[in-house]
């Protein structure tokens, strides 16, 4: 039997990117920059909230970055990039009209269909808000499909809050319960100060009917999970997104492997019950 034809899926040229165009940029903070990106020929990326793609600049390399727009946005998609290494530094230098290589989307998204009819509790720490923004925009777009929408957002300081215009919209939207906190305030800061877990005890949740979606730095997960545990939120109702270095995006290169799970295939979005037995997860 021919090895090329005996598979369920057709073997693919997995490593060739699409050359997509940058159509808008917005510098949120010194470290974070937002890009709107358009695939050639008006093609849709076709992603689910929570999925990621691999972005590359020739001569520099490739890295996995979450898509931060909802699939409801048509004709283009958004990413928000934190400057942490060489590639992201070079991405920050890109301007409107320039092209960037895109492969994807990859990985699991939030199972939004299963979330229908539920209360959605979204907890984002730092740049964790970036992948969550695609979920937030999705649930806002289909507002009537969901129960309460509660957003908890924590940042180190007010200057590091991302998507400032949207934060204001969420705050002003009576159908969204939006709570923000910063670790360290400034004289002008009127809101909460303290770590994000301080926002959790005050929540009154319909435990069986609430889905929690959490994204943040590794240290945050531990404490948020403990806080939700003390609320007695069922662990099957908790979803989180993990970050690992990825080279291939398709479950081959091995870099993102957590025990027997590939973050690029089985994640980045996991149901907590799926990873609680993976000691290397967080």
């Amino acid at each position, binding site marked *: 039997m021919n090895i090329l034809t005996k598979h369920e899926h057709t073997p693919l040229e997995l490593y060739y990117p699409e050359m997509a165009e940058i159509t808008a940029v917005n510098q949120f903070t010194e470290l974070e920059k937002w890009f709107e990106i358009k695939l050639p020929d008006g093609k849709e990326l076709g992603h689910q909230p929570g999925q990621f793609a691999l972005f590359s600049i020739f*001569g*520099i390399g490739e890295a996995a970055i979450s898509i931060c727009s909802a699939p409801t946005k048509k004709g283009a998609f958004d990413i928000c990039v934190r400057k942490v*290494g*060489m590639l992201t*530094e*070079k991405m920050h230098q890109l301007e409107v009209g320039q092209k960037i290589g895109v492969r994807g989307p990859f990985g699991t998204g939030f199972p939004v269909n299963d979330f229908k009819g539920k209360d959605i509790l979204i907890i984002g720490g730092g740049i964790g808000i970036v992948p969550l923004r695609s979920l937030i925009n999705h649930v806002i777009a289909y507002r009537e499909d969901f129960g309460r929408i509660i957003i908890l957002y924590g940042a180190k300081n007010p200057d590091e809050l991302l998507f400032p215009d949207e934060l204001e919209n969420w705050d002003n939207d009576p159908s969204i319960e939006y709570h923000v906190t910063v670790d360290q305030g400034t004289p002008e800061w009127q809101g909460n100060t303290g770590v994000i877990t301080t926002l959790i005890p005050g929540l009154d949740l319909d435990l069986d009917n609430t889905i929690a979606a959490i994204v943040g730095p590794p240290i945050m997960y531990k404490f948020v999970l403990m806080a939700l545990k003390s609320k007695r939120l069922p662990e099957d109702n908790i979803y989180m997104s993990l970050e690992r270095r990825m080279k291939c995006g398709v479950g081959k290169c091995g870099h993102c492997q957590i025990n027997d799970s590939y973050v690029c295939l089985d994640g980045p979005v996991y149901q907590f019950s799926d990873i609680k037995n993976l000691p290397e997860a967080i």
Partner: protein
Amino acid sequence: MSTQTAPKTKPQIAFFDFTSCEGCQLNKLNLENHLLEILEHVDIVEFREAMDDKADAYDIAFIEGSISTPSCVERIHDIRRRAKILVALGSCAVTGGINAMKNLQPIEDVRETVYGKDKYLFPTLPAMPVSAIVKVDYEIHGCPMSIPEFLVVFKALVMGKQPIKPDSPVCVECKLRENECLYDRGMVCLGPITLSGCDAICPSFGQFCTGCRGLVPDANKNAMLDILTDHGLSLQEAEKRLLLFNSYKQPDTFK
């Protein structure tokens, strides 16, 4: 290529040598096939071995050699002040290299062995890597510096990106080349804990790795010593072999 005529867009680079054999600079001149291409991208504004010109400031200063005299210390501070990016070139500059072997013996004995009662004519310090005195931005390892690594760093700096720093051991490159392991020939080799980036050139030519590129981060030295002694070296010989290019102990006094 003088400073006056050079268009400002090209990075101005300079080469300096300290205590060394100057083999790294020679190795650079041995890039015959690429030398003219390299000169397309940069202007060399100071390079004592090859030219008379001197310059006041440099975009990139490449430093060869260890710091081993009081006047070296002054000179390297001066270069650092005038260089935007400072790159240490080769083992002597990066790790102290073979020069640092002298640090293993009492300095007075070393001086006396070579100059006898005239030893005080020539001031000397323990041999130190450049990073013991000033901030080093990038390092190109090897004795002599590896040409492939030099090109990687050079291209990255000219393109304004950070060069990828190897952190795996020589064994990896040896396996990629499908070399026979020298241990299987009854030899001992420092490849298992020596930083890669040389394309395993010595083992590929049947010679043991001498550790000239320095050790990998968090090298398990005890395990390495066990390997060396299991393969026939005495513990003393094994320790000496490890120290061949890795004798430097950073003295606090010159930080």
